[in-house]
């Protein structure tokens, strides 16, 4: 018997993510690639990448394609499109049934989602007007400090101490960092201070929604141990990180595809 699959595509501003699941809702393959500003092409490529893992692209029988993310409308032959809010909630709930709160820190926006006990979206807020509180902030700062983005989290955690970055504006914070460097402050301290600054901003967003544990952190920034450290400290609660925090939205999209195929409620 031929297996059937469901594909979730999350086309974000920074990266495109694809997750392929089977009828049993198991993840069969996934892929993440940088968008590079070309949403349409990235969507095509990440889809191929995910399909190739399970077989020949034209032979994999995909029953439903659900797209999400800013580029969700650009995806060809989609079964439907759903916002990343609903998808993240869906994915997070599937991964850990008791999760009540999802914080997603993406490249250009961050969101906080309160879930009901049954995993439905109760309330949410998004930040996208300002780079502070998003991955972009750390990206800018990693360039200023000339440190690879991936190393920032570990440097912050190992620092022990932090330098106070009070400004929440990316431009102002950049000049603060430069002045701290000029004063000879240790780079790890600055890095830790930057992770704290992002966390404070995200914490502000989350507080407006009403933080309710258990909490899951998703999105690329969830891999940054410095942000995880500060965020859990600010919230005063442990934060759970899924194995692949970047693909939770795409996973949720795939689940929605499977459920609508199996004629279940999409809630």
């Amino acid at each position: 018997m031929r297996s059937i699959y469901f594909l979730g595509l999350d086309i974000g501003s920074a990266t495109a993510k694809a997750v392929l699941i089977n009828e049993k809702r198991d993840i069969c393959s996934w892929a993440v690639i940088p968008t590079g500003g070309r949403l349409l092409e990235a969507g095509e490529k990440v889809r191929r990448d995910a399909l190739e893992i399970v077989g020949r692209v034209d032979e994999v029988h995909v029953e439903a394609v659900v797209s999400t993310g800013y580029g969700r409308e650009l995806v060809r032959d989609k079964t439907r499109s759903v916002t990343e809010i609903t998808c993240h909630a869906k994915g997070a709930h599937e991964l850990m049934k008791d999760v009540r709160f999802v914080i997603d820190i993406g490249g250009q926006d961050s969101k906080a989602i309160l879930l009901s006990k049954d995993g439905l979206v109760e309330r949410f807020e998004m930040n996208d007007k300002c780079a502070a509180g998003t991955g972009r902030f750390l990206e800018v700062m990693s360039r200023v400090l000339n440190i690879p983005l991936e190393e920032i989290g570990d440097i912050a955690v190992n620092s022990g101490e932090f330098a106070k970055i009070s400004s929440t504006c990316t431009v102002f914070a950049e000049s603060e960092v430069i002045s701290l460097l000029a004063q000879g402050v240790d780079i790890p301290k600055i890095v830790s201070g930057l992770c704290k600054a992002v966390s404070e901003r995200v914490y502000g967003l989350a507080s407006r929604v009403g933080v309710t544990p258990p909490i899951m952190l998703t999105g690329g920034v969830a891999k940054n141990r410095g942000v995880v450290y500060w965020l859990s400290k600010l919230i005063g609660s442990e934060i759970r990180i899924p194995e692949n925090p970047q693909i939770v939205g795409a996973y949720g999209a795939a689940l929605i595809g499977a459920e609508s195929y199996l004629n279940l409620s999409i809630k």
Partner: protein
Amino acid sequence: MSVEISELLKPFYQVFEDLYRFAKDAKTDGEKVAGYFCTYSPQELLHSAGYFPVRVIGGLGATPLADQWLQPFACSFAKSALQAGLSGDFSFLDLVMFSHTCDTMQNLAEIWRRRVSGLEVVIVSTPNLTEGDIPLNYLMKELERVKEELERISKVQITEDRLLKSIEVYERHRSNMKSLYALRRKNPSALNGEDMFAIVMSSFLMKKEAHNEMLENLIQSLKALPVKDVDKPKVLVGGSVCQVQGFIEAIESAGAFVCDDDLCMGSRSYVLPPIYDGNPTEILARMYLSRVPCPAFHKPGHDPASYLLDRVVSSGAKGVVFLQTKFCDPYAFNYPHLRRTLEKEGIRTLLIEVEQNQPVSEAFKTRISAFLETLQ
């Protein structure tokens, strides 16, 4: 929707082609045109002094000229209006009228008076306290003063008779608009939010006499429609200024039905009790003070949240979308209370921060879609 009704609606949409087409045509025909910033401006006085009053609405786009005079933390309504004023977009106006509301508009009036040339500026000191005889007496005196100022500028004598006639035109208009809002309650499918927005916007930009006629024809035809509810999730839109055409349209194209509003460019300008007897300035003063207050005002005994809740319940809305104009303090101060009250009653809310000089963004659409997903 029947062919006939879509035909009747078309003329309301004309304003979106060029907001000031009617005003400019009138000017070309030798009439005097006055812009007003806020619906607390006594338009009846302008009307009786021979002006065609039109509401000042800013445009989309960057505001480089206004940025010379207003800091980055000024609201986009003030900026876009000043930009239009400074770039000469309002050269067809003979006069602009400010009515005292919030701190931003107060200082905008001052900057405008000193920097925008070629038109008269009249500022009405509307009281920010809107309950009781003390502000009533003050406003009556202020309206007398404004009347004299307008007489001096226009060289038209505003007789009691003239003013009463203008009041009649405006009262008829308010009553038509109220009927329309009431009709939407009874028969939600009669008009969608986008249509209603076109009607409201045109009401600020067309002659009241012509608008009255269009409204009366429309209402007659709408009344003949069978009563039918809509099968989309109904939402109410709350906020202060709402001058971007795309906002309501985007909410509806995401799959919602905007069944009612609590906007200053919307129901708040029209939901008032009928007029009183008395001399014309007293009629006007009582009427303006009896309005559902602008969030910048203080009206003892008025709770904006229970007012909003009433509107939500009676319109059948399942959720409320707050279009919070960035840096609009009066509304932002109300928001936590509004949200608390609604959520206590199980009504879902969504806050979207908007700029009144920017078109609908992708983020706007995403938020609306996500909100609708939670309503289902």
